[in-house]
């Protein structure tokens, strides 16, 4: 038995220890929003630490600029410390709590969700079958798709809303104004916090050298995802409002939005996965690496299988590819509130809170 009685700090305590050292140094003042937000305080509640952690993009610029990283005895590694807090906080905020860490830190669980989702769609194709529709509906009826996907779209929205409510309470957020929201959306859209002046971007794949590769890959994913989402939404409108059911020709809104969206999503996710392989895992949440990687791959797969399905139109591959694509999308949405995807909402909440605090400080 070990007699080692060194008390181990929780993720929040360790991050607080590090942020307090940062607050006595302040050399990173000009980097992202984390530092001015930290330097406005003299002591840090758990909620303050959660808020700082959610502002951090894990770009790692501060790590390479830090004079106190190991082997220095202060052993600062703020990107990793804040990443650990994020992982823990999302688990704490997750609703229902049973799924808290399942998909964030377990790549295998995410892969299992993918397999399950695909199997479910296969079974649905077998059992529910066609409502004698055209295109994809020849394999799975429109009403069956709606019955499966409507709850799969709506449930994550509810779960994330519950999570963000818990977040907002913990960080002490007040009533949100349009100005706060606007500031947050602009910061998020421009990824302003990855632009520390002349030192632009992240220190991901080339050590202490800056690179904008991660920023570009991330934006490809964001825009790809939004285009795919817009494609599906436009299809819904065509179906219900204009009574124009699928299949759609290439020169139609769903395809003109979906094809470039799928390409951007696939390429962006491939880029993020490659960068993740080259970056030092010790500067992130080590235990969450597998879950994050699995999530990026799942994200890329939704784009890739969608494109493959479109390319296979009219061939015998449609049925299996349809099952794979719909299964991927299903797995993505069902696990969304418990995977890395949740960061989008928490980051937006953190930026909104930051805008509030800045406004209050004048």
């Amino acid at each position: 038995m070990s007699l080692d009685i060194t008390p181990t700090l929780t993720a929040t305590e360790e991050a607080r220890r590090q942020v307090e050292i940062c607050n006595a140094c302040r050399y990173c003042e000009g980097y992202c929003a984390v530092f001015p937000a930290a330097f406005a305080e003299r002591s840090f509640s758990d909620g303050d630490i959660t808020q700082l952690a959610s502002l951090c993009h894990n770009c790692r610029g501060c790590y390479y600029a830090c004079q106190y990283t190991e082997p220095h005895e202060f052993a600062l590694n703020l990107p990793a410390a804040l990443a650990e807090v994020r992982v823990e906080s999302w688990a704490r905020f997750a609703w229902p709590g049973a799924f808290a860490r399942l998909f964030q830190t377990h790549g295998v669980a995410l892969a299992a969700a993918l397999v399950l989702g695909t199997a479910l769609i296969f079974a649905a194709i077998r059992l529910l079958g066609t409502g004698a529709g055209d295109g994809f509906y020849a394999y799975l009826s429109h009403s069956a798709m709606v019955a499966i996907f409507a709850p799969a779209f709506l449930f994550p929205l509810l779960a994330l809303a519950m999570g963000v409510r818990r977040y907002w309470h913990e960080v002490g957020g007040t009533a949100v104004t349009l100005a706060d929201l606007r500031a947050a959306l602009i910061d998020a859209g421009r990824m302003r916090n990855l632009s520390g002046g002349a030192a632009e971007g992240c220190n991901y794949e080339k050590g202490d050298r800056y690179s904008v590769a991660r920023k570009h890959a991330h934006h490809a994913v964001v825009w790809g995802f939004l285009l795919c989402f817009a494609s599906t939404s436009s299809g819904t409108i065509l179906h219900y409002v204009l009574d124009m059911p699928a299949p759609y020709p290439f020169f139609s809104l769903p395809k003109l939005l979906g094809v470039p969206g799928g390409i951007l999503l696939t390429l962006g996710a491939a880029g993020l996965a490659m960068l993740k392989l080259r970056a030092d895992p010790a500067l992130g949440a080590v235990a969450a690496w597998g879950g994050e990687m699995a999530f990026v791959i799942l994200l890329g797969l939704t784009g890739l299988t969608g494109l493959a399905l479109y390319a296979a139109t009219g061939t015998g591959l449609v049925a299996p590819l349809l099952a794979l694509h719909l299964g991927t999308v299903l797995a993505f949405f069902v696990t969304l509130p418990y995977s890395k995807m949740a960061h989008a909402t928490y980051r937006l909440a953190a930026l909104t809170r930051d805008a509030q605090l800045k406004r209050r400080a004048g």
Partner: protein
Amino acid sequence: MTRVDAITWDVVVVGGGNAALCAAIEAAETGARVVMLEAAPKPYRGGNSRHTRNFRCMHRGPLSVLTGSYEEEEYFDDLIRVTKGKTDEYLARMTIRDSETCLPWMERHGVAFQPSLSGTLSLSRTNAFFLGGGKALVNAYYNTAEDLGVTVLYEAEVRHVTVAEGRFQGLDARIGGKDLRIEGRALVLASGGFQADIDWLADAWGPAARNFLIRGTPYNRGVVLRDMLDQGADSVGDPTQCHAVAIDGRSPKYDGGIVTRLDCVPFSVVVNQNGDRFYDEGEDVWPKRYAIWGRLVAAQPEQVAYSIIDAKSLNLFMPSVFPPETADTIEGLAQKLGLPGNKLRETIDAFNAACRSGDFHPTELDGLATEGLTPPKTNWARPITEPPFYGYSLRPGVTFTYLGLKVDRTARVSAHGARLHNIWAAGEIMAGSILGEGYLAGFGMTIGTVFGRIAGQEAAAHVA
């Protein structure tokens, strides 16, 4: 890779901080084959430059991140004030003038500056701040040097420089555990001061120096400086002097850097380990008094002092890296700090009794002085009465040493009054030529950049 000891290098640079990097970059840009010998392992590369934050720069109008103008006369006046005239005016003015062209050069070579900020920084006119601090600057320069083909050797301790008939011929170094002979046609010495050699400090200062803390790199041991002085190199600066400030007494022995600063003194009562006050804590605003407290604490028993404040002052200064000791009574605080409780109580009572009512202004000289107290506290004298009480220990923290090599305006080193043929020096090893006493924020980086560039250019021209 070819063995480093099988090559006759064009320019050999000893050191791995700002000045060494500037010299290596300038020389490599002419096409010269350059090797840099950095004594530290890679994570600690950059000498004291990695702890720096800014660069003091002359400018005739807004320049990059700098606001307004800061011209030669004002800059020189600032220098004269801190050095009390101990400077070589010609070299000083040259350094000041050259600083203006250095800033764009730094930006071209990868250094990112911080946009001028409000808040804690009030130096946006005179000093340009490195985005992320000195280590970010050092990283940028190492990347630039690497792109230019400079060979960098880490854990490369230079033991002896062979100088014969006024000419550098080669040097002996222990590199990664192996003794090697490095040969080259020109030599740039940029290996810093000797503040990390405690024995040398103790020789100069007396045994008290063994209790000093070294704020910067543990790798500035002055081995090359001593070797050159032993061979008759001309020197400048006072060997018995070092620049020391009062820092948190709990700081690491080496390499504590900026976070060891404590700004509480003006709002406190400072006692030695006997519980006695020994100097006017409110003499002037803190940046001006910061340096003299190093000396004051060094003169106290065991080179330690204690700064005592009460609850109303805790948020008036920059957060400290170590939390203060805290107690609800003065006696309780004395016990935690290891001070005689009765004596501290007496000292605080006497101080409190000497305080007068008046307006307290933490950011300016407010004239709120004690009456009939020796030594007096001439500003910010408010009674220490509101619990909890807080205490910080203070020790002298050495920032740099003044003794160095004498150089001329081309950064050339001389021995026995004659210029050496092919040896130049830059950075802290020659800064005493310009900064004979005191310190001016950001001026060390200015000297290092100006002379590093000159040394690199001159050495490259010599071998061209």
